[in-house]
């Protein structure tokens, strides 16, 4: 336990170690630690931002979904209306067509009836004339009596 040169040797060693530590050990390690701290902090804030973004995106998606639903509902509504309209109008058309056809048929029938009557009338007139001729045994001057015969025919 003698105090001797070891004291000075130890002090010198101490000084050299401290110098080395200050220069070559401390700065790179603390720099790396600070860099990591920054990295972690950045990562955390990025995660926060991402979750916020996600929330916003979800909100937006929900909004769009809602909008799309509304649009679709409107479209369907419109289509339904249009379909009803088409059905209505085609019903109308069909009715009109039918009525037209009926009208036409009616007109034809009427025409045929008139024709048939006319033909019948003529026939009847001829028959009547023939009958009358037979009765009178004389020929009737067709020309002279045509007026009368026409009158007769019109009466039938």
């Amino acid at each position, binding site marked *: 336990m003698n105090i001797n040169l070891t004291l000075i040797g130890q002090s010198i060693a101490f000084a050299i170690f401290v110098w080395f530590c200050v220069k070559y050990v401390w700065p*790179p390690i603390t720099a790396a630690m600070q860099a990591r701290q920054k990295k972690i902090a950045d990562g955390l804030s990025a995660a926060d931002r991402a979750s916020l973004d996600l929330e916003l995106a979800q909100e937006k998606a929900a909004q769009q979904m809602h909008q799309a639903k509304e649009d679709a509902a409107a479209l369907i509504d419109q289509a339904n209306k249009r379909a009803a309209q088409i059905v209505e109008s085609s019903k109308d058309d069909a009715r009109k067509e039918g009525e037209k056809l009926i009208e036409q048929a009616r007109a034809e029938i009427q025409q045929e009836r008139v024709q048939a009557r006319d033909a019948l009338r003529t026939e009847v007139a001829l028959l009547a004339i023939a009958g009358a001729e037979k009765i009178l045994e004389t020929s009737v001057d067709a020309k002279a009596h045509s007026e009368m015969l026409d009158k007769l025919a019109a009466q039938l």
Partner: protein
Amino acid sequence: MADTPVEYIKHHLQNLTYGKLEAGYERFDGTVVSETGWTFARTAQEASDMGFMAIHVDTLGWSIAMGVLFLGLFRFVATRVTTGVPGALQNLVEITVEFIENLVKDGFHARNPLIAPLALTIFVWILLMNVLKLIPVDYIPTIAHAMGLEYFKIVPTTDPNATFGMSIGVFLLIIFYSLKVKGVTGFAKELGMQPFNHWALIPVNLVLEILVLIVKPISLALRLFGNMYAGEVVFILIALLPLWAQWTLNVPWAIFHILVIPLQAFIFTMLTIVYLASAHEEH
């Protein structure tokens, strides 16, 4: 190896000393030194007769070895340091660095890039030197004896030269920063005008303040030395017990020292920070 318990203890507490013997000195075996020269001391008497011109080879060697181990390890990590996921070794180093960084942040408020690495060096170095104490007391001396070295004490912190060597370094830093931060007049004023702020009491103040200043390195060195030396003595005493009984005391004492070793390193570090912080403070 020595025979009686007293010789055994004395033997284990003697450093391996390499020093200068004057011409005409009579050595332990009766031979007379013919000319002044450096040699290994063969007895405790020779070691003390060498006076100041001697070196404790074991203390210096082991402390430098521990310092190189510390710096080598930390430098190794520092060159491969990654900001990504650290490995086990880097983790260990970073825990230590962060621990010291927090200590300095809490205790030292001025800006000085020297303090934290200084504290780290003190802490890890002392820790490693103290850890040597957990090596059983006879292992290394027996090996050294087989190599022809009479004495070998491996724990540098049980040598006051080592602890005072460090505390004197700290003391010089205290003086340096006191002068640098406060200036010569500021430092003189701090020594002369405290604690009694009156011109008539300047001599009293000077005595008190200089005493306070001087006591700082002494308390640093003696606290560490005293704890480690006493622990070492107890280990040696336990080693005197019969072999089968040693573990009953050895194991608890070693476990206790697992607490003491980092604690003493921590106290030295903490006090260094506190002393240097007060050196930076203007009153």
